[in-house]
């Protein structure tokens, strides 16, 4: 089974212009700055240089790309937090995490200013909490057990800011690097933002997940995709991202350059992508201890029973922690 990747590599060396592997990568939302690194790698040809012809398949409000991965319809999947991966392992779905592009999960709760929600503890008393389906079945459960949030306040969030803007006492979910920008644009006020990561939700985010048999049979392909994606993120954050922005606006016409740039600034400011481990080991870095710690927290929150998930199967570390992109970052000035 190792002859295939070897042959591929040989072919690559022999004819770099010809051997392009077709790869589909599905994201978990419409194109936004939180996907910037991947679009960058497409826009500036990094994927192509690594012999990959990558198609990015965006997610969206009613779209659930996740079943496509085990079904073989896509090659790589972006997941928002480790809970999805824990579930897959628990249910015997043969997928595995190969990289964690975000060191911090930007999942946040936002609230109106001046309503007493400046402290995180006050959020649980909000009369209305607008949470979307995905969150309802994952981190909301953790909020209930660990921080005392109640189902009485829960209302479905359909990705429409209207109900939140109209009700000063309401709180809603969002990405700390995205929704606050939209709220400021539409509602003309700066919302209070509480990052779940700062209150114990210690998961990695924007994880790259793929099938177990892809890792087994095409490890070289996986490595190339991970490396090119890491470089894409370095270029997006620290280099010239105008082409990537243009590509994202093409995929999501409602997005604007101003929103994208504001989002990038927040990502850097909050250390979402590049902080902690990634500063020394490169973007995408992961370690076992962090995954185990997060799992233990989720067990405490009642989402899983101890030992229900074989953590060894959740992620493989063979593709990251190799300092990929660090010198590029230095070259670009890394700020």
């Amino acid at each position: 089974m190792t002859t295939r990747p070897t042959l591929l590599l040989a072919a690559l060396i022999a004819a770099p212009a010809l051997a392009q592997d077709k790869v589909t990568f599905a994201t978990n939302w419409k194109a936004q700055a939180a996907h910037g690194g991947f679009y960058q790698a497409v826009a500036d040809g990094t994927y192509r240089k690594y012999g990959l012809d990558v198609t990015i398949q965006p997610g969206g409000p009613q779209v659930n790309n996740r079943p496509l991965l085990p079904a073989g319809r896509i090659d790589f999947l972006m997941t928002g937090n480790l809970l999805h991966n824990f579930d897959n392992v628990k249910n015997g779905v043969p997928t595995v995490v190969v990289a964690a592009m975000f060191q911090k999960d930007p999942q946040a709760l936002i609230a109106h200013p001046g309503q007493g929600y400046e402290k995180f503890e006050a959020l649980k008393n909000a009369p209305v909490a607008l949470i979307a389906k995905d969150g309802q079945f994952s981190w909301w459960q953790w909020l209930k057990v660990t921080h005392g949030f109640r189902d009485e306040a829960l209302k479905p969030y359909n990705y429409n800011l209207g109900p939140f803007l109209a009700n000063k006492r309401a709180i809603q979910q969002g990405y700390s690097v995205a929704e606050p920008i939209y709220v400021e644009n539409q509602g003309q006020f700066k919302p209070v933002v509480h990052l779940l990561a700062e209150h114990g939700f210690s998961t990695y985010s924007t994880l790259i997940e793929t099938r177990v048999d892809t890792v087994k049979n095409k490890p070289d392909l996986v490595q190339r995709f991970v490396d090119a994606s890491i470089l894409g993120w370095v270029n997006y954050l620290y280099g010239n991202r105008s082409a990537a922005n243009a590509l994202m606006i093409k995929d999501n016409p409602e997005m604007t350059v101003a929103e994208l740039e504001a989002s990038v600034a927040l990502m850097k400011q909050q250390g979402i992508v590049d902080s902690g481990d990634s500063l020394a080991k490169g973007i995408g870095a992961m370690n076992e201890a962090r995954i185990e710690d997060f799992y233990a927290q989720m067990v405490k929150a009642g989402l899983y029973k101890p030992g229900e998930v074989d953590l060894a199967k959740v992620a493989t570390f063979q593709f990251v922690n190799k300092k990929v992109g660090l010198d590029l970052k230095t070259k670009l000035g890394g700020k």
Partner: protein
Amino acid sequence: MRIERALPLATFAASLLGWEALVRLAQIPHYTLPAPSLVLQTLFANFGSLATSWWFTLKITLGALVLACAGGVLIAAVFALSRSIERALFPVAVVLQVTPVVAIAPLILIYVESTTAALLLCAWIVAFFPILSNTVIGLRSADANLKDLFRLYRATPWQRLRLLLVPSALPYFIAGLKVSGGLSLIGAVTAEMVAGAAGRETGLASRILEASFRTETPKMFAALLLLVLTGVLVFWSFEALSKALLGRWHASERKD
């Protein structure tokens, strides 16, 4: 008679066996298409929580149906009494009927406070039109000669309603009811799918969503099975009701 009953049961059993065989022989993974045996296992393992959701979906479906009956019949009576009111309001009813509930549901969820009320409203919108439309026709379908007869014998309006209009309308109303039964379930499920409500008061649609998000495909199928059962139950109940009320006299219940 026995063959009548045996045939659908045999077909059903055969399909189940075929499904099981297909999954085993083609080695289809359980997270893509679970075998019926696995679905049933999952159903029994999770019956406690699934039953609670089942009850909720049933409540919404039946609640919406009752409200659809009440609303549909009342509005139909008003329409039957006044042609001008009918002409004025019927377009509203039609608009409500043709607008897909998938599109309205998010809006309703924004405007209506209680999620349960929003779900009831969505299911009601879908279910009430057949009852309204059929009952209006039914009320108007009273035999002209019988109407003359009632006039001749100086029937009071109440007698006319009770002894002539209501029985005349009954077959049409029941036909509408049969349609609305299924629609009510679909409306309740669709609305909940859109709402994606989690939390205490949730129905089978939420459980299906939850299972899909957590990649628990056998559980999805188990919840789906309960939904299908509900639909079949509703259908059979109305068939029985129709037979009871119309069996002796209406052409639609003739045995041939």
